């Protein structure tokens, strides 16, 4: 009896009169971007169109796979199978490894289909479940030569696994040999892996062996794997030749993109020879592997036919360029090795890698790609440069533009500076990154020593902006003649133009972000760099944001503190802390997953399929690996306000906090939220919390290893965890004070201070003077939980935060 399968409309013989049986591979959420995107948008019409297109170009069977992270595989199959079975002429192949999905699909399909696939990976458990279904519903089945040891590599192993499966399927469960299509798997011979040089031979021998030793069974191959890693044009040719050879060895069917099949007759004798040499590993030149000869041959012979392509772009160059743009590091060294045969290391950097990164920068600038992807591109660039550097002549370095980067004195924040380093150094500039807390004297000395062309200064703190402004005259007096770039959270264009530019003769330039810095460096190269200027926007009505309430109620009740004095807490429930993470700020702001040009739906998909899983990974990692050691030092203190001062008492001593007052209405000062001695005095809270230093160590390791993407992600996550810890501890203090009656219902409520009172971080807009930390540390002694102060009153470890807690109902954020 002939083996055949059937749809509602026609039956199809598994052994075609002219082999092979062609199985269309494009309806696969993992293998086809277009199908995946359609599926993610519930666009089942496009899913059907993709199937129909394959039918139109000659597929005899359509493979359907809807297993994809974040999708309900069952539901998608339940929707697609009825549509496909009524609309497609050809039968289906159910591509799933989940028995429940397979069973449901078999129930829904009105004809006889093929199940793809079974194997022995789990030692022989699932295979029984699936084969019983296959038998019950009278289907055919694909069997992969995979066992407990993994994918079988050699022909004898492949044949031996096939025999084991045959024994179960035919001898034990009573399937017919012709119901089974064995896929002996093939691996790429295109990536230069020495162990895989004979991969095509092993596969072809296995096809022959299986057909001989298990009479009646059929064979199938996922053909295009063979050429993975090669240029698209040469892949098509190699695939066609390999298919022809595999058919000669007894192959019955193949799963392939039917539209890309190429008739053997259209391939020249000469091209075929290079394919045979590669497939059969025939070494014809002792100096060059068959792979290298193949790549060379097709790099000059094929792609030049493409119209509109720049002649100088040959496929391998284009491949490297694409790898940088897409941030893909697979097979990178092989590609570089091939390129090194005809280009110098510096040529590869300047002509391929740098233009690739430039393109990435442009896409980022247009909002077409997001920061995390830029960092993956930079990683690819960096990995390439690292591979090429040992091969470069020293003299290659000398004509590169040199840039010094430092975080200014008193500031420990280095993420911003490091991002600038990543972007500039991966755009071909020589960057001297001399670290954090660097005094102006050291910056001057290093700038002269390295003879740099530009000095870049960074700093996050309000204080750092002052440091930059004040040090301008020092750079001027020291005779520096190069432009100074400034960047950091507390800086504005106005501040740079008005308070920094006048103090220094060469251009002083404000940089909004790392890409802005890159743009300014390019301006400098072409002689168009100008000092930053600022004009008040025409609609400018200077409004200080923040509370506008000028009359602070003096009769509010003073809550009773649970104790007066300081305490240390080391047992903090991490789950509760993590529940307070501000995901919006983390995803959009810190991780850089902004919506950009995406539709709302596309953005939700990105969040669901990429960002939320990443977040969950971090959450689990933080909880599991002890990356957080959350601790708090805090206390409540009797206090009284005296004009702009808040004076707290502790252990018989007075601690005098001097706060600035707004220079315009409503002329607020933090001390206004506390009662004076005449009004009966008040109570103030203080806390310092930290998540410990382990995460900072881990972050530094990632940066040192050029793992830019993971570096940014981990750093950002740890910053938000620290913020969540402050939020958590503030809530705890409200509870202890008995003012937690109206608490927020969600994170947004916390963000917008929907609770009684407020907390004010030292170094932030309401109390910008970070040196108040000196008093805080005298009172709370956070050294006991591992937090120390630098000489500039910054806390170490970096992931620590402090606050003054006010209970006054009108107390909210404001800026002086």
């Amino acid at each position: 009896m002939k083996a055949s399968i059937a749809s509602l409309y026609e039956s199809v013989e598994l052994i075609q009169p002219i082999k092979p049986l062609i199985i269309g591979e494009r309806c696969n959420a993992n293998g086809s971007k277009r199908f995946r995107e359609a599926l993610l948008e519930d666009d089942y019409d496009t899913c059907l169109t993709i199937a129909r297109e394959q039918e139109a170009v000659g597929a005899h069977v359509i493979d359907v796979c809807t297993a994809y992270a974040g999708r309900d595989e069952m539901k998608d199959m339940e929707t697609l199978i009825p549509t496909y079975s009524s609309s497609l002429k050809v039968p289906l192949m159910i591509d799933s490894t989940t028995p429940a999905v397979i069973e449901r699909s078999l129930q829904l399909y009105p004809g006889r289909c093929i199940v793809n696939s079974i194997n022995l990976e789990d030692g022989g458990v699932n295979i029984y479940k699936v084969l019983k279904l296959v038998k019950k519903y009278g289907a055919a089945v694909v069997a992969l030569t995979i066992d407990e040891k993994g994918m079988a590599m050699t022909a004898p192993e492949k044949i031996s696994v096939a025999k084991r499966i045959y024994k179960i399927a035919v001898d034990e469960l009573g399937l017919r040999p012709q119901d089974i299509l064995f896929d002996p798997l093939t691996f790429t011979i295109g990536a230069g892996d020495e162990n895989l040089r004979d991969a095509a031979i092993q596969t072809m021998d296995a096809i022959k062996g299986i057909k001989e030793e298990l009479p009646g069974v059929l064979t199938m191959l996922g053909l295009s794997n063979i050429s993975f890693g090669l240029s698209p044009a040469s892949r098509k040719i190699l695939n066609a030749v390999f298919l022809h050879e595999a058919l000669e060895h007894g192959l019955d069917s193949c799963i392939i993109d039917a539209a890309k099949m190429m008739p053997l007759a259209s391939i020249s004798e000469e091209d075929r020879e290079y394919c045979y040499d590669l497939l059969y590993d025939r070494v014809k030149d002792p100096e060059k592997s068959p792979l290298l000869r193949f790549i060379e041959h097709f790099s000059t012979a094929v792609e030049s036919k493409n119209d509109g392509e720049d002649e100088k772009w040959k496929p391998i160059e284009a491949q490297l360029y694409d790898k940088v743009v897409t941030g893909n590091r697979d097979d990178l060294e092989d590609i570089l090795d091939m390129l090194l045969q005809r280009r110098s290391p510096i040529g590869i950097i300047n002509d391929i890698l740098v233009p690739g990164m430039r393109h990435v920068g442009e896409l980022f600038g247009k909002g077409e790609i997001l920061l995390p992807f830029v960092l993956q591109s930079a990683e690819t660039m960096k990995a390439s440069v690292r591979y090429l550097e040992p091969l470069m002549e020293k003299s290659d370095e000398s004509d590169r533009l040199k840039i010094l980067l430092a975080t200014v004195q008193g500031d420990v924040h280095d993420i911003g500076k490091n991002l600038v380093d990543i972007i500039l150094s991966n755009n071909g500039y020589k960057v001297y990154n001399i670290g954090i807390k660097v005094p102006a004297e050291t910056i001057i000395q290093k700038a002269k020593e390295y003879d740099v062309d530009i000095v870049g200064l960074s700093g996050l703190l309000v204080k750092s902006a002052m440091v930059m402004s004040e040090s301008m005259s020092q750079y001027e007096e020291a005779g520096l003649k190069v432009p100074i770039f400034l960047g950091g959270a507390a800086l504005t264009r106005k501040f740079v133009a008005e308070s920094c530019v006048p103090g220094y003769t060469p251009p002083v330039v404000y940089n909004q972000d790392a890409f802005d810095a890159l743009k300014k460096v390019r301006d400098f190269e072409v002689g168009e760099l100008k000092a930053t200027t600022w004009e008040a926007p025409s609609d400018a009505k200077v409004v200080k944001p923040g509370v506008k309430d000028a009359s602070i109620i003096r009769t509010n009740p003073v809550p009773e503190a649970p104790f007066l004095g300081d305490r240390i807490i080391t047992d903090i429930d991490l789950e509760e802390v993590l529940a307070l993470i501000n995901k919006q700020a983390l995803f959009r702001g810190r991780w850089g997953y902004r919506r950009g040009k995406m539709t709302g739906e596309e953005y939700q998909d990105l969040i669901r399929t990429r960002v939320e899983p990443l977040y969950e990974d971090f959450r689990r990692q933080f909880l599991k690996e002890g990356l957080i050691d959350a601790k708090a030092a805090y206390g409540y203190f009797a206090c009284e306000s005296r004009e702009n001062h808040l004076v707290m008492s502790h252990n018989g001593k007075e601690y005098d906090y001097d706060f600035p007052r707004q220079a315009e209405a409503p002329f607020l000062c933090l001390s206004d939220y506390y009662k004076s001695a005449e009004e009966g005095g008040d109570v103030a809270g203080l806390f310092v919390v930290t998540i410990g230093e382990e995460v900072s160590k881990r972050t530094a390791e990632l940066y040192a290893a050029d793992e830019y993407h993971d570096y940014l992600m981990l750093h950002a996550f740890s910053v938000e965890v620290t913020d969540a810890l402050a939020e958590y501890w503030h809530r705890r203090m409200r509870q202890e004070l008995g003012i937690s009656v109206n608490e927020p219902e969600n994170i947004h409520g916390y963000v917008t201070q929907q609770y009684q009172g407020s907390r004010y971080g030292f170094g932030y807009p309401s109390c910008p003077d970070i040196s108040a930390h000196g008093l805080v540390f005298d009172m709370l002694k956070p050294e006991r939980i591992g937090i120390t102060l630098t000489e500039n009153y910054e806390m170490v470890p970096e992931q620590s935060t402090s606050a003054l807690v006010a209970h006054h109902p009108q107390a909210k954020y404001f800026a002086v």
Partner: protein
Amino acid sequence: MKKYICINCGYIYDPEAGDPMGEIPPGTAFEDLPDSWVCPLCYTTKDNFDPID
């Protein structure tokens, strides 16, 4: 009118409510906010807002 979220702190600008702290009357579309307008909570600029829907 669309709401916008601050990517730095998570504050949501709701045009129906405006921003009393920044002297923005209710009914002002995000697009019509002056360029000098900043987030009332974290003072970041308008370009650091994403639309939400």
